[in-house]
């Protein structure tokens, strides 16, 4: 019995000792708002859309590391790589000697930020889920890197072009759009997504009503019932979109009563432009608008 008591006492003492040691040599607490960032010189981006934003703010010289999936602008592929968007490598980030690491706000990145801050690295987290978030994110990036003017210009450019598009399309019908994220099993964009925002900005409406899921899996029955006028599939992989288009046509011809299929209004568009909330936002909206209103905007 005695040895069990020894073990318990040892366990308690061990933790007390550890607590004391951790308090004494504990890392300096990192405050969220660093007063002076005054133009970061060495920036690491861990998301492709953030990389695009940094380039759009004329920071190409200051970027020292990007993720493997950062492929736009093409110059980004020549920067040092720090892992993937889903699994950034902290070792590679530290090796870049960054003075600012910009991240998004989902779980993997939150954990990364916590670990980097513990070592005293400055991190900026932008929470970009919607178009409004994007503008807030651009402003935050601009402030952090002393590029306020460029940030304002970028936002103004996007809003001006979107407004002009809205004026052109204001008298048009709003076609019902099915946004296919995945064909088999079928998964589409629901209403609570930024894709929905893009569709509406491009003068359309989502054919899918309110759903429990953000990207609901649906059956053929719902597709027929939704009276879909246009089907849009963003490309999922790099390469030739015509192959995916052929597959999409073959797939949808099984449902000939759907108006979009009957009218041949099935489009495959560049996935990167419409799935990254970044500086190419308007380009994405325009691409969608051309699918929805070909007679007004031309191909």
């Amino acid at each position, binding site marked *: 019995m005695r040895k069990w008591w020894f073990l318990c006492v040892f366990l308690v003492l061990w*933790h007390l000792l550890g607590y004391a040691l951790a308090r004494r040599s504990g890392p300096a607490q990192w405050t969220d708002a660093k007063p002076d960032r005054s133009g970061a010189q060495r920036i690491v981006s861990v998301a492709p859309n953030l990389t695009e934003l940094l380039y759009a703010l004329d920071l190409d010289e200051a970027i020292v590391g990007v993720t493997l999936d950062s492929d736009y602008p093409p110059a980004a592929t020549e920067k040092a790589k*720090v*892992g993937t968007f889903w699994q950034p*490598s*902290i070792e590679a980030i*530290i090796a870049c000697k960054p003075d600012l690491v910009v991240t998004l706000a989902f*779980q993997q990145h939150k954990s990364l930020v916590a*670990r980097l801050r513990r070592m005293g690295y400055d991190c900026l987290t932008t929470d970009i889920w919607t178009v409004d978030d994007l503008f807030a994110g651009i402003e935050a990036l601009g402030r952090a890197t002393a590029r306020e003017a460029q940030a304002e210009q970028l936002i103004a450019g996007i809003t001006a072009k979107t407004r002009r598009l809205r004026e052109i399309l204001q008298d048009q019908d709003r076609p019902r759009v099915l946004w296919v994220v995945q064909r088999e099993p079928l998964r589409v964009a629901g209403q609570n997504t930024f894709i929905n925002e893009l569709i509406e900005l491009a003068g359309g409406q989502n054919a899918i009503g309110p759903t429990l*899921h953000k990207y609901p899996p649906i059956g053929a029955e719902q597709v027929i019932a939704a009276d879909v006028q246009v089907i849009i599939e963003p490309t999922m992989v790099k390469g030739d979109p015509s192959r995916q288009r052929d597959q999409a046509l073959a797939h949808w011809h099984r449902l000939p009563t759907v108006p979009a299929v009957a009218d041949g209004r099935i489009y495959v568009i560049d996935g990167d432009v419409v799935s990254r909330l970044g500086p190419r936002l308007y380009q994405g909206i325009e691409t969608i608008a051309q699918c929805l209103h070909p007679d007004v905007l031309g191909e």
Partner: protein
Amino acid sequence: MPRLLSPKILFLRIAAAALLLFLTMLLCSLVGTEEISLRTALTGSADALSPNPDFEILMHVRVPRIILAAIVGAALAGAGVTFQAVLRNPLADPYILGISSGAGLGAMLAVISGVNWTLWGRSPIAVFAFAGALGTVWLVWMIGRVTGKFHVTGLLLAGVVVNACFSAVIMFLTSIAKSQDVYATIFWLMGNMNEEDFFVLWAGAGAVGAGLVALFFISPQLNAISFGATDAQSIGIDVRRTQFLAFAISAFITAVAVSLSGLIGFVGLIVPHAVRLVLGPDHRQLLPLSSLVGAMFLVAADTVARVVVAPAQLPVGVITAMVGGPFFLILLMRYNKKVGWLT
């Protein structure tokens, strides 16, 4: 002719394994995606004015992560030995009584609910997973107790069914959750090693170490129980108490391991078997040596996971199964005839 296990042999073997573990850890700390110079890392100053990335990478990224892998590997292998002995089932592993799905469910709930606090530096995922793991084992234990005193079959079935139910709930939550949340959890479910805070490692090492020592205390009783509960009882062993202690302690260290690093399969299954095949089934030796070999195995596997698809990383569970599986099969074919333990 099998030799009897004397304290001296046991001590020498443990010391040799510990030395080997230390060497493995040392070697693995020099391997990584970034080339670092040991001299720069150790001589260069670490003050804030002149950042020393070599030092940061070695001391703040690699070494904590390697220590974490050692703690988790030791915990899983030790718990695996105990579960195999008490359940008298060669397929038993630390997750067999539903710990994995309980912890997974906890982690999933933490991610979906979006809670954002930390408890002693631990993220909500870790805290929820720990609670989920212990809660599930308690539930399974209570169900198992209703089915009969020594009937491990009831316990096993309860574990399997609870596992299946919770897995279904996880699948349901996965299908309704936001996609980015799902991704975060998937990585966690495949084993997610990160470098951790000093106190987290210290406390984890203390808890796991104490748990393993406690299991070592009851290893003679485990020897008897592995022949069968009635036999053990006939030579004067309190089977109920030993079973309870063994379950409680191994569930606790497994829960600690899971909350530190997510679900890492295979270590708790094959390391005990491998050690048993090579060195025999005496638990006084099997338990400490399995823990040390488990630590070694996970440190090595995690190092491979860190570098093999650099600069990206693989979940360590992929490596443990892909490398560990064939290696174990070779051992099985080579030693089974000699030991004759499956027959």
